[in-house]
């Protein structure tokens, strides 16, 4: 029963993972990857890792929602409406990844894994929480520092008005700020609303003075 329960998310995870690189549409590719993560997170739930499983789903769906924006922004064929190949070195990649799978699979099956030591704690979430606030605190502090550095450096790299941008954004803003002013002048269009006034006045009759009033 447990094995059957495991097979469903496992098959979904691998199949949607493979779909990432076969579908044409970038939106589909991104959300296929999201589905793969959701399935992997579901398989963690089978290992009594309720918190980590749900957090994996949470993080990865969020990441993929952002990823989709970038995919559509940068890819040549975001909706897959124009079939085209974006691959290189297809055969080499297939051979290498097949080799990797065989090697890792052989390791998984052939290595005599040690006996299980201990049993799962009553509340694995609590155990993890106590570990990261206790014996493993240094690890998480380090992760925090790394994440903060990442935020700063990613912003420095990506913000166009920063050191590495070409100041294009600033110029654009300037151009927009100046804006065309022609549209706001008088002209017949500005008076179009007056025809709604019940009965009184037509285009010809409505004067600029009336507008100002």
């Amino acid at each position, binding site marked *: 029963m447990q094995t059957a329960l495991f097979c469903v998310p496992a098959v979904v995870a691998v199949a949607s993972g493979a779909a990432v690189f076969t579908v044409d549409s970038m939106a*589909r590719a991104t959300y296929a990857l*999201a589905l793969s993560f959701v399935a992997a997170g579901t398989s963690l739930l089978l290992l009594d890792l309720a918190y980590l499983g749900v957090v994996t789903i*949470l993080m990865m*769906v*969020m990441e993929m*929602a952002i990823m989709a924006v970038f995919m559509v922004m940068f890819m040549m064929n975001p909706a897959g*409406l124009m079939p085209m190949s974006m691959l290189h070195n297809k055969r080499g990649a297939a051979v290498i990844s097949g080799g990797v799978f065989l090697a890792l699979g052989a390791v998984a099956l052939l290595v005599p894994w040690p006996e299980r030591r201990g049993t799962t704690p009553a509340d694995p*979430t609590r155990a993890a929480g106590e570990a990261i606030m206790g014996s493993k605190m240094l690890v998480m502090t380090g992760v925090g520092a790394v994440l903060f550095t990442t935020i700063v450096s990613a912003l420095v790299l990506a913000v166009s008005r920063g050191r590495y941008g070409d100041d294009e954004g600033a110029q654009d803003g300037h151009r927009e700020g100046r804006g065309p002013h022609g549209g706001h002048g008088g002209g017949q269009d500005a008076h179009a609303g007056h025809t709604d006034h019940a009965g009184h006045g037509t285009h010809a009759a409505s004067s600029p003075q009336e507008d100002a009033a």
Partner: protein
Amino acid sequence: MTVTGAPVWAVVPAAGVLLAMALAAAVLDALLGTTGTGGGGGTAAAARGRRWSRPLAESARLMRQRGRTTVAPDRLLWRIGTAGPLVAALLMAAVVPVGGTVVADLPVGIVWFNAVDVTLWAVVWLAGWGPNSVYPLVGGYRFVAQALGYELPLMFALTAPAVAARSLNVGEVVQAQRGLWFAVWMPVAFVVFLGAVAAFGMWGPFSSPVGRDAAGGVLAEAAGVDRLLLLAGRYALPAAGSGMAVALFLGGGAGPWLPGWLWSLIKTLAVLALLVVLRRRLPVLSPERIVRIGWLVALPAVLLQVLVVSAVVVAKG
């Protein structure tokens, strides 16, 4: 009051309750509305009488209406995006206790709620992407942008009651409020949570993803049953969020005289009515302003709130 899991068949009545709440919100919304008299002439009183039944009449109309297709839509993703909000609301409601029972008594119910609301990032964007049309796409992008603004404050607003209750289980959070409701001593988290509920439901000031300036945004190309599903999801999301607000901040089913489940429902309806009423009184904010408010006002405030809560918890020992 202890909260226990319900048998599997409880899924059906729970879904029914959620849909009834969504309908109640829609009816209240129609009653408060000043525009649209439901067609036909007659006196103002007659028009008001018709407004009662407008949500149901509109549902019936949409069920008979033909769906719309666009040029080269991504049908699969569009379907997912259309059904997504309602499904997300149902999944959220699964961890919301009603009185002493809850459909799914997950040990990490709060994280589950958070994960489901994150899936809204994906499904609303997909609902905008699917039709291959400009205005829905604009709406989808607006939602992702405003999600960036509200998500972190929401996460920390969820953290505060969890820290105070020392548990991620929603039932234990309810139990921890026996003496004092969390809304009383963590008001900032409560307000931020309500704001985030409005935001993920595309509601009131956060309704620019379905804004009129974008021809209805995500809703622009949806017709027939598709539109009905999206609208139902949009009313069901604040309903599920209100239920969670009651469980996390307003003591769940605690209250005198009446049974717990009734208190849960009454409180949820009250919070939902508050959201519906406020919706009409606040202007729509653009996503970039929501991000600014979220990161410069709500996030620091709710972080301070979590700090205060943690200090209280440590001091109490």
